[in-house]
């Protein structure tokens, strides 16, 4: 059994990469491996935007990752600085920046780049979806 870290640098909706990453993650779990965590960087941080909405007959990848994370206890991690630059802030961040609103999607956490390095260091493999 291997422990796998996933890095997603592509945005939800505009790119199909995230869907492929989720298929991969599900296949890993079905094969008996574990996903150590999913780290979102660059445009990938958009997955953590609570304001993403879709009609019911459209795919909703940000929410699908939420479900996957909850079902399999997999952390969904956004790089905090990359997220802030792209307009995604948790409550604490928003307060620090003097903003009245925050928009971090439930189930996602904003953490530092160092945490991705630690995640990657302890996982057997890291796979990027671009």
């Amino acid at each position, binding site marked *: 059994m291997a422990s796998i870290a996933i*890095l997603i640098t592509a945005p939800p909706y505009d790119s199909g990469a995230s869907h492929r990453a989720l298929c991969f993650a599900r296949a890993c779990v079905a094969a008996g491996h574990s996903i150590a965590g999913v780290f979102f*960087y*660059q445009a990938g941080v958009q997955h953590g935007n609570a304001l993403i909405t879709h009609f019911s007959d459209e795919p909703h990848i940000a929410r699908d990752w939420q479900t996957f994370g909850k079902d399999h206890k997999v952390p969904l991690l956004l790089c905090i600085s990359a997220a802030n630059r792209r307009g995604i802030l948790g409550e604490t961040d928003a307060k620090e920046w003097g903003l009245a609103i925050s928009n971090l999607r439930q189930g996602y956490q904003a953490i530092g780049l*160092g945490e991705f390095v630690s995640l*990657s*260091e302890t996982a057997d493999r890291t796979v990027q979806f671009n």
Partner: protein
Amino acid sequence: MHKHMKRIAFIQTQAPMASAAGIEGLDMAMVSATFEQQVSLFFIGDGVHQLRLGQDYAKAHIKDFTRTLGALTFYDIERLYLCRESMQQRGLTPDALIDGIEVLDTEALSSKLAAHDLVISL
């Protein structure tokens, strides 16, 4: 779960002024090195533009790539490679670029990448 140092290759593929990719790639590389991973940087495709000398980054309102790349030795990042073909395709020669970057042919670059535990492309 054991911790061990990984040999990580970061491939820079974008020009400095074209997008944020170059800066975010360097950030990740530097943080990885701070966490004691063995970091290599590969400049491929438009990524070779990050190495150009004589750029006015202040005017472009972006981070000074020449200075940042020059400071990489302080992070113990010394394995820097660029793709010869990418360089030539863009009409560049080594004297137009920062010092200390090893120029590699496609084949040599491939083998070098294969000698890493993890390859991240930005």
